[in-house]
């Protein structure tokens, strides 16, 4: 033992294993995201799709797309879809909107996170335009209508006839009001 523990091969390699596993736990984050993106699991949608459709599709069918909205925590926003569900034909671009109202006298910055159920349909929902691609801001007491343009591609598996598009709204930032009307 007079050599010191780092002369011991087993000790050194075990310490190496500990350090590796610590960083491996952080590597799980990108690995997980890549895995979900490649397989389309977990209902995640990443960014806009190109508006282009491969041609020779044999048939088109009707799919019922339902819209859900959730306001996370205590964000002071009213947020709902303007229509609860629409029937769409596969490969045809449809448009709908969500309505959001700021219920405060402060400017709000919001982020909206999408999710698709069933998860396996996520890669077949192609969004051309979505308010979820970037942060949104609402002036005090402002109401905005946010558009989505999307299509359901015809590679959607046959046994899925209902697709749920869910949006969860999070408050990111609230503008601090300056002391103008501060009463005491």
């Amino acid at each position, binding site marked *: 033992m007079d050599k010191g523990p780092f002369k011991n091969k087993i*000790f050194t390699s075990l310490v190496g294993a*500990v350090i590796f596993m*610590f960083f*491996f*736990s952080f590597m799980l*984050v990108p690995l997980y*995201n890549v895995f979900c993106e490649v397989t389309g699991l977990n209902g*995640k949608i990443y960014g806009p799709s190109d508006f282009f459709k491969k041609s020779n599709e044999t048939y088109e069918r009707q799919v019922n797309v339902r819209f859900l909205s959730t306001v996370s925590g205590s964000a002071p926003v009213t947020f709902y879809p303007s229509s609860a569900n629409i029937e769409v034909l596969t490969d045809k671009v449809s448009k709908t909107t969500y309505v959001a109202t700021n219920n405060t006298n402060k400017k709000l910055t919001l982020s909206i*996170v999408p999710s698709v159920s069933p998860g396996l349909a996520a890669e077949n929902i192609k969004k051309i335009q979505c308010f979820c691609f970037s942060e949104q801001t609402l002036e005090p007491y402002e109401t905005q209508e946010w558009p989505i343009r999307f299509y359901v591609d015809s590679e959607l598996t046959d046994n899925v006839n209902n697709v749920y598009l869910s949006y969860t709204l*999070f408050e990111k930032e609230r503008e601090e009001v300056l002391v103008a009307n501060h009463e005491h």
Partner: protein
Amino acid sequence: MSAVVENHDHHDDHHGPRKGFMRWLTTTNHKDIGTLYLWFAFAAFLLGGAFAMGIRAELFEPGLQLMDPIRYNQLVTMHGLIMIFGGVMPAFVGLANWLIPLQIGAPDMAMPRMNNLSFWLLPVAFGILLSTAFMEGGMPGFGWTFYAPLSTNYPNIAYFVFAIHIMGASSIMGSINVVVTIMNMRAPGMTLMKMPLFVWSWLITAYLLIAVMPVLAGAVTMLLMDAYFGTSFFDAAGGGDPVLFQHVFWFFGHPEVYIMILPAFGITSHIISTFSRKPLFGHSSMVYAMVSIAVLSFVVWAHHMFTVGMPLVAELFFMWATMLIAIPTGVKVFNWCATIFKGSITYETPMLFSIAFVVLFTIGGFSGLMLAITPADFQYHDTYFVVAHFHYVLVPGAVFSIMAAVYYWLPKWTGNMYDERMGRMHFWLSFIGVNITFFPQHFVGLAGMPRRYADYALQFAEWNAVSSVGAFLFGLSQLLFLYIVVKTVFVGKKATPQVWDGADGLEWTVDSPAPYHTFDTPPKLNG
């Protein structure tokens, strides 16, 4: 230490322990450190048990009687954390410290100073964790699994994170010490396959700890960064994913489950063989079974989270992989039964605890198989059936094996025989108490009673009352255990070096109590 017969040459470094508190603070002796770990674990067991008594008192009848739901959640969380990280794991590390050098014929652990550090980090970690009880915001109340983003929004999360970091560092150092000791310091002639099974079980456990404790450290670090540094690993608002937390946590969590049971397999193998007066049936198959269980533990984690919305193929994979674990576990149970078969059996306290271990752990294993069936799990998920399952594998599983080990090796540690009559009484009270507590939880779970609530629907009242009565019985009978152990330390029939006539192994070749320094020269193995 005057009673110790020193039959070796005297060198300057052969000395007895220091006197008083400094002996324990500065000790590098594996026996002292093992003792410290075991007493620490016992204290944690009583504290975690007190929390459990609080939980069962609240659940004795429907409605809120003793505490509000926030306090209840804090008790549930702290009960889990204290029992796992303060009770079961340190108890096994304590046994490892005492027994591994004795069983492989080594003079001490390979890195005695690190050994001291890894023990003394534990009181620090638990001091930090328990200090939250006296703070505004209180103790963590998000469950021992600390699912994000629930936990990141809790007060005092930083204390929890640092406590986990420190106890993780303690476990990692302890494990490295175990592996290096076993790999380098075995008596000449002791090949890996000749190693006693407790040593084998700890070698595998130590590798599991080295692989997954850093992942736990990573998970809590991400939690800390989410809570204080503005990252969004697990927060959907910033593009993170709460399901990712569950994957990272259970990638640690499932091997952790086996960390808490593998040493129990080793202990049970020794005790059953001793009191059946037969060599263990299938020594090498036991080793292969433990290695298979350890390897499989890395590919089954998602069975804890079947209901998060995984694709069918993943659910099938994790279901089959989980069921596969029943095979090596079945091999072990078979071998224990085959060892008992046609043995000359006597029923001393350690044997009683070990037989109860085999039976009750197997019941826990069967309910585990039921939970592994994905479609059934959608029904059982987060009900008391799960609570009954993991308490069956942890209390009459891990905890009974620790009690068996204490009774089995206590004469070697103290030089005194424990009171056999009281030991048996402790066993029967514990055995009856544990079954009254946890068996009815299967029923209320299957009937749909959810976990982690301070209150429940009226139809569950009778079984919950029964369960609480059992818990008080089990809890109180552990005071008897404390009394028996303390009494044995001071008085009792003097133990012979052999202690048990069927016992086999190097630890039985040294005096009882084991001298402060043993195996200064490596022993010769016969056969």
